[in-house]
């Protein structure tokens, strides 16, 4: 996989990544993967496989035990070493919107600009100019508690877009929204992405969502994660939910579900083994 992407413009390169919370249960073991400049990739994995941990590693909130995480900037394509990487190069959108209840929409969205040292007034001017594009026109002075779930996520997304990096990490941003809002948010996200062409790594549980949005799926199936299975989605854009009904998408979906089910088989086999051990133990006692 690494060889395959060699020579392309990379946005993120992860090599030999190892991380574990406890010695007995490593989450990642010698994990390699790359993201291309400007692609929309989704990370699909059953829960408990450390998706959010991977994001925290890429965002620099955790340090890898071994391996490197390199992030390449669009302008100057100079690699930055994972261990000494200066933060502020990725836009991180957490699962919860994490808006500051004491700041209005503009001030919340301007947080990243402010921290990077841009004067507050200038930061506000930039944000205010971008509000219409993000569907937040006229909401500049509203406080988070006055916003709907969808609008809160728009503010949160805008904040991560403005945090400086070309790489955006979106951690299940729409999981808390109702189905209708979710669909409109997905379409909206695609519009913004097609305009700005940032590299997006998107975590989701939802196979349909991943198929609709992504150029490529990265599927993790078993712990510890040492490889990510790849599924390229070459269907033309723009895509709608209707397209998900056509044969090619259904075939892709089956492929992805099989990749995910692989783990289910393993767990079944494991429990089966445990039961066998149990009976053996029982026999020993009698």
């Amino acid at each position, binding site marked *: 996989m690494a060889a395959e992407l060699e020579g392309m413009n990379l946005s993120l390169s992860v090599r030999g990544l190892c991380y574990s919370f406890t010695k007995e249960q490593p989450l990642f073991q010698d994990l390699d993967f790359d993201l291309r400049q400007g692609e929309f990739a989704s990370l699909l994995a059953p829960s408990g496989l450390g998706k959010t941990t991977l994001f925290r590693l890429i965002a620099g909130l955790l340090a890898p035990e071994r391996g490197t995480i390199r992030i390449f900037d669009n302008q100057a394509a100079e690699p930055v070493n994972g261990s000494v990487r200066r933060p502020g190069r990725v836009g991180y959108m957490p699962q919860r919107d994490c808006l*500051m209840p004491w700041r209005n929409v503009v001030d919340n969205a301007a947080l990243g600009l402010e921290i990077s040292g841009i004067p507050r007034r200038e930061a506000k001017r930039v944000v205010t100019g971008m509000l219409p594009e993000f569907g937040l026109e006229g909401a500049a002075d509203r406080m988070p508690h006055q916003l709907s779930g969808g609008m809160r996520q728009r503010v949160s997304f805008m904040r991560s877009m403005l945090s400086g990096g070309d790489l955006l990490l979106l951690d299940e941003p729409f999981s808390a929204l109702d189905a209708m809002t979710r669909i409109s948010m997905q379409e909206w996200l695609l519009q913004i992405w097609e305009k700005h062409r940032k590299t997006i790594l998107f975590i989701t549980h939802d196979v349909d969502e991943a198929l609709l949005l992504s150029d490529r799926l990265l599927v993790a199936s078993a712990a510890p994660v040492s490889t990510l299975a790849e599924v390229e989605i070459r269907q033309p854009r723009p895509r709608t939910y209707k397209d998900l009904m056509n044969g090619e998408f259904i075939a892709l979906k089956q492929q992805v579900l099989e990749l995910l089910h692989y783990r289910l088989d393993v767990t079944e086999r494991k429990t089966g083994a445990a039961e066998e051990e149990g009976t053996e133990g029982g026999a020993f006692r009698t």
Partner: protein
Amino acid sequence: MMKRMKSALPVLLLLLLLAALWEAATALLQIPHYMIPKLSDVFVSMWDNRSLLVKHFGVTLQESLIGLCFSVVLGTLAAVWIESSSLAKKTIYPLIIASQTVPIIALSPIMVMWFGYEIWSKVAVVILFSFFPLAVNTADGFRTADEGIGELMRTMGAGRRDLFLKWKLPSALPGFFTGLKMAATISVGGATLGEWLGGESGLGMYTKRASNMLRGEAVFSGVLLLSVMGILMFLFASLLEAIVLARRNGRK
């Protein structure tokens, strides 16, 4: 404004009802005036001694406010200290909590020993009473700040200064105001106790002296005025809170 007046109506009616009950019961049951004076007598006594009471009211209010100001500064500093040093979090914070098992009333005479009979011993007692709620509630405010926001700011490259000013400090404000409201009310009690231990003026001294002379109506007028002072301090703290936190809650 009209809305708030309307919501205050039931409690005002209840107060009126209680006042009427008091007046009626003391008259009908013929309770001796040094046990419970008639409410009307209390108001008559208040009016007769109005200039004296205004002076004493001012003295006690001054002691409470000065002590409260010291507590605000010291309590906030203590909370910041606890927040910024993990050693202080492990040592100072539990110590402050444990200090509440020491009866403050028993410590109060020490303040008189140290600061004499002037205003400063009363201020010291007020600080003893009001420091704790301010320090602990503000420290809890810091501690319960949303970690998600802090992490997000770190991915943006925020340093300690940004984290404190833009995240921790605003997060601690609700806790601070909870502490301030408690401290404001309790500070009047502290000032009263300080005056009992040794003082020539103030409402606490006035009630104590009146009680020595079995002048029930004077004792009760002092107690009523002290309650009014406590309520006013509380309302003032609530008003401050409403103004400062108005934007984030939106209900006030």
